[in-house]
């Protein structure tokens, strides 16, 4: 990598990002392996922040590791676990250690995770977090005090193109744009026509959109996600394609589907890039890229 993510976004290149998940514990071997595998194949690497409210090694620590190994990290930062002081101070730390990209998230509910009795903080929401970064960039903290040394980040957020209902989601999307979000990673998309409609709407705003690509590993997973995961719709033809795949071939089919989607998005310049989420299958990201012709 070695190139600053923001410059890449602004260059008009079709940007590709992926993500790595920190471990539960201090054994970093697998995460470091994934970082080494992906850091030169994608333009930036998200490090997830206690994803699904599961306590893990911190995203900040993962970002340092990406940086140390020559990659470009995107710090995922949720509002679930930290109050204003902790969020701001982590941003100061991130900046001094060379992290230049932050993805601002609300965070999953505490009740879905593995510390179900813990307090969900949510003192800020994702819109307020974006604005807080703006403030720190101006050299002020939320208490109105002057900083000795500011920060500068490329600010990202998420959007769910298939949200049902769409209207409240679009209001929030526009608030995030107004709050200074420069790029958006979307929830997983599988229906190109629906996504094109979303892009017709989103392209009126001065932001970069990276389509979310979640690797499908089986027809069962595809059905489960459609039925249970908010804002995910896998069209029936894709589910059929997966279920008609001979036994043992689902993963390869999933890779093919993901690659095909990325290639289609890139070919017609439908969006500004993709964010690949190969949850627990990070090792196949290079295969997805190959299937996409990247």
């Amino acid at each position: 990598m070695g190139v600053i993510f923001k410059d890449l976004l602004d260059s008009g290149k079709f940007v590709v990002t992926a993500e790595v998940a920190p471990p539960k514990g201090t054994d970093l071997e697998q995460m470091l392996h994934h970082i080494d595998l992906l850091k030169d194949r994608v333009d930036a690497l998200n490090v997830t922040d206690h994803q699904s409210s599961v306590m893990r090694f911190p995203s900040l620590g993962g970002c340092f590791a990406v940086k140390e190994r020559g990659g470009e990290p995107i710090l995922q930062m949720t509002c679930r676990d930290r109050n204003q002081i902790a969020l701001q101070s982590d941003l100061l730390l991130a900046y001094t250690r060379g992290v230049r990209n932050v993805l601002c998230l609300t965070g999953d509910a505490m009740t879905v995770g593995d510390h179900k009795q813990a307090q969900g903080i949510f003192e800020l929401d994702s819109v307020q977090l974006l604005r807080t970064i703006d403030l720190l960039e101006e050299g002020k903290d939320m208490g109105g005090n002057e900083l000795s040394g500011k920060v500068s980040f490329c600010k990202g957020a998420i959007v769910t193109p298939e949200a049902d209902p769409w209207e409240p989601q679009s209001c929030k999307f526009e608030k995030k744009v107004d709050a200074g979000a420069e790029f958006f990673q979307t929830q997983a998309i599988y229906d190109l026509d629906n996504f094109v409609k979303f892009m017709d709407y989103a392209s009126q705003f001065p932001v970069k959109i990276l389509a979310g690509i979640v690797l499908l590993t089986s027809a069962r997973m595809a059905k489960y996600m459609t039925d249970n995961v908010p804002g995910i719709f896998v069209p029936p033809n894709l589910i059929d394609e997966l279920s008609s795949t001979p036994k043992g071939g689902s993963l390869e089919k999933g890779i093919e589907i993901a690659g095909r989607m990325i290639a289609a998005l890139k070919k017609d310049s439908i969006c500004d890039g993709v964010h690949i989420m190969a949850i627990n299958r990070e090792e196949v990201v290079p295969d997805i890229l190959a299937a996409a012709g990247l």
Partner: protein
Amino acid sequence: MKTITRQKPYEEIMQQLEFCNRVFIVGCGTCATTLQTGGLEQVLELKEKLQDSGLLITGWAVIPTACDEMTAVVAAENETAIQGANAILVMACALGVQRINMYLDQPVLPGLDTLFMGLEEHSGYYMEACAQCGQCVLGYTAGICPVTACHKGLLNGPCGGTNRGKCEVDQDRDCAFTLIYNRLKEQNRLELMKYYHPPRNAQVLPRPRVKILDPKEMEQWV
């Protein structure tokens, strides 16, 4: 408005009573009666149960409204039975427990857990309508409180977990922002969905929170 309570597990009640053998039980004729957590019936049920566990019940009373100052009168009326007990078990909300604690010297123990202040939306359905945050946003949110109606207490719109208008943590609950959006739409005030809410002030009234009425204000009510 009702204070929503639920009975503590019996084991926990017994654990609190470990140090004593003579108990006076207090119920409440208002919220805990409606909620069937600390009314006459529940007081008598618990009395039986505690007696079966070998405790002596020196007496019991269901105070009309355990949290108000008339509780002092009921305490005085039951002075002998109360004096005979080495613990008071209160089947009322925590306000009732603390009111009684003002008048008595013995340990006053809660028999209930206090959950929230509930607004009865329809018969038997209580919802938490107010988190007493001290900075009401209802004027911007079509009279629906996102601090209580959104699981995460978000102000600026729905999280990514909302699905088909429902909340990610409970498919039976509506997403606050779908409700707010629909209501604002009906009122032709959708521009408010774009209103930026700054972070809430967590220290509007720092704890311990008290309100002291001016003597002149009090005169109006005498």
